[in-house]
């Protein structure tokens, strides 16, 4: 009897959850679907769900007209470069805060977090001015630096919360056995920290990839990533739904796939360890 009730309840829950899930996902599904239609089919009334001629021509046209590959490459360089650089700076910092904490460690961590709260628009002009002064405008290196700096607090925090979970006794045992600081980091900490570092890399790559204030304001032709590539479809090309969809699909597909792998780390990373 009780069993029957739970099965019925499970069926209802399943139906409700799937309906809501599909509704939320619908805009993405619709974009991907439309990217395979012709322009005429894309604006057909009633909307076409399956019965249309699948075509790849939109992808070819988008690549040809706006050089998708260059933007993609810029996105990879910007997101990848800023993440790698951020990790290089953050790992030593997070390591020392987690294993050699001092009275000020907590304050430093909170202060780092506070730099993340600085509204970008408040410092837009100074940063542009510095970019002009140092000839960084529309260069990839300049943006790599900016993206690294805006995500550095999150990287340090994530790494810190992961490192904190490594038991300190292991380190003490290693020290007793005469391991040097370098050996300690290389042979004991690094292997234990790899999963945490990997998820940190993943999440920050995603955040940098989707960053759309600095990438829109500090780039022009040379260093523009996919965020700017899509913004250029604002008008009038945006009215060509099939091409807009193809461009959008190409911009989000890589990160959508990466994102699905990182969903567990997302919570920890974005709440600075406050929710695990």
């Amino acid at each position, binding site marked *: 009897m009780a069993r029957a009730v739970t099965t019925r309840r499970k069926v209802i*829950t*399943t139906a*409700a*959850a*799937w309906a*809501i*899930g599909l509704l939320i*996902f619908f*805009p*993405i599904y619709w*974009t991907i679907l439309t990217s395979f239609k012709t322009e005429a089919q894309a604006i057909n*009334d*009633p*909307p076409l769900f399956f019965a249309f001629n699948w075509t790849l021509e939109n992808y070819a046209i988008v690549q040809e007209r706006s050089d998708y590959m260059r933007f993609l490459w810029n996105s990879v360089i910007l997101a990848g470069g800023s993440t790698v650089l951020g990790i290089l*700076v*953050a790992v*030593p*910092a997070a*390591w*020392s*805060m987690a294993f*050699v904490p*001092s009275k000020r460690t*907590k304050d*430093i961590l*909170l202060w*780092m*977090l*506070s730099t993340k709260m600085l*509204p970008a*628009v*408040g*410092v*837009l*002009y*100074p940063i542009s001015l*510095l970019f002009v002064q140092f000839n960084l405008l529309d260069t990839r290196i300049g943006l790599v630096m900016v993206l690294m700096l805006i995500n550095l607090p999150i990287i*340090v925090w994530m790494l810190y919360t992961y490192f904190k979970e490594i038991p300190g006794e292991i380190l*003490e045992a290693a020290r007793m056995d005469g391991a040097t*600081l370098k050996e300690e980091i290389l042979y004991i900490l690094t292997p234990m920290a790899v999963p945490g570092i990997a998820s940190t890399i993943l999440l920050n790559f995603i955040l940098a*990839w*989707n960053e759309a204030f600095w990438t829109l304001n500090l780039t022009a032709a040379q260093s523009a990533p996919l*965020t*700017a590539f*899509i*913004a250029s479809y*604002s008008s009038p090309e*945006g*009215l060509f*739904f099939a091409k*807009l969809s193809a461009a*959008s699909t190409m911009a*989000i597909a890589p990160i959508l796939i990466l994102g*699905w792998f990182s*969903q567990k780390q997302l*919570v920890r990373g*974005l*709440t600075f*360890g406050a*929710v695990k």
Partner: protein
Amino acid sequence: MATQHSRSAARLMMAPAVVLLLGWMLVPLTMTLFFSFKKYLPLRGDSLERGLDWVGFANYVRFIGSSSFWPSVQATLIIVGGVLVITVVLGVLLAILLDQPFWGQGIVRILVIAPFFVMPTVSALVWKNMFMDPVNGILAHLWRFFGAEPVSWLSDASVQSIIMIVSWQWLPFATLILLTAVQSLDSEQLEAAEMDGASPLMRFWHIILPHLSRAITIVILIQTIFLLSIFAEIFVTTGGSFGTRTLTYLIFQRVVDSQNIGLGSAGGVYAIILANIVAIFLMRIVGKNLDR
């Protein structure tokens, strides 16, 4: 037992991150403060080389006194508030639903989270054109199907449309964090309450909601910080017209479009103060968590 040696090594290892962030914070901030007290209109011949006129708090007074200031504060509050209400309320309900046993949990969770990974410019453009376009948008099709007149969403209901787009992007975040919190709820407590005859609504109100309060607070604070500075969603949809000019966008226009650096910088200082007020509350919660 940390030795003196490892202490100084630790300090050395922390140095690059600290120095970089300190520079990143202080240099632009000092410059913004500096410009906010100056008359600086590059298009009217003011230049750094020839020196700028000191104008005291004139920019601050003008920024607040301008006719677009209060509407922009209002737009900011409505958009941030609207998105917060929608994402938190739906997020709590969705988290509880997704926590129930059902078939295909993993797949549904992926579907729900997906919008968070869509870059802001893409979601704004897809919504603007493919959904909200008054002629060919899918919502226009739907409206016509029911015999209604299609709505010009981004001009006639611009603020609601922006709230809709941004909520779609942030609902996954709220749901995911609240779901994590729901999962840590002690199920024995719920079962005991059920045995004692507590209705589902009472269980929700007296057990689930109090348990979620911390996670809800965190969601609200973190989202507020990000929402106060939403930019791309407005940049590619309305461009700040039809009452969607938020404080962030107003400052952006002062600096980039009208090239009034002094005025924009004063606005920037206001935005920084505003963000810091929110930040203080967030830091308290996160800071408490560090002690545990």
